[in-house]
């Protein structure tokens, strides 16, 4: 069984963060000193995009008008 299959089994084929069931990807949590299933999670594209791009998540405004 490969990593993705193991994670699918663990999560019930759902995003482990928001429970979405589509566009699921394996995310190896950096720094990747813990490898394999323990160091990874199954997540959807929406979550992944925001994890990797802090600009897309920021609660603070990205720019302010004077």
């Amino acid at each position: 069984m490969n990593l993705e299959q193991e994670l699918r089994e663990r999560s019930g084929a759902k995003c482990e963060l928001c429970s979405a069931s589509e566009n699921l990807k394996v995310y190896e949590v950096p720094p990747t000193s813990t490898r394999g299933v323990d160091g990874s999670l199954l997540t959807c594209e929406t979550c992944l995009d925001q994890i990797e791009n802090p600009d897309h998540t920021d609660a603070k405004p990205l720019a302010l008008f004077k």
Partner: protein
Amino acid sequence: MPNHWRCLNDSMWSEFRAVQTIAWRMLSRLKSEEWPQGLLDMLYLDNETLKWAQATGEGIDESEKIIHRDVNGVVLETGDSVVLIKDLKVKGSSMVAKQGTAVRRISLDPENSEYIEGKVGPTQIVIITKYVKKLS
């Protein structure tokens, strides 16, 4: 889209450390709002998991971040390899770490920007950043 992350309300209780780690990081990123700070206050991580979660510097203001730099001012990260630029006596032992020794997969002292750790031979030692040069 901070509201997307209200999902962490449930998923932060996952038994899996990778999920806990990302929940902690995302809540830390959003903690200027009230609800993520509230969840963060409830989220308990064991020491090892907390260290992992903190390893990317998430949730720390740039000005508070401890940055480790080598002799040339190059930023060092966990997992980097460095080379010693002079012979270093290892305190409390007769061992000398020789100039030119490569130290692979270093880790950073989270509290002191002058200290990194790495293995020289079989021994884990603390090395002062001004005596190392990053290997690219």
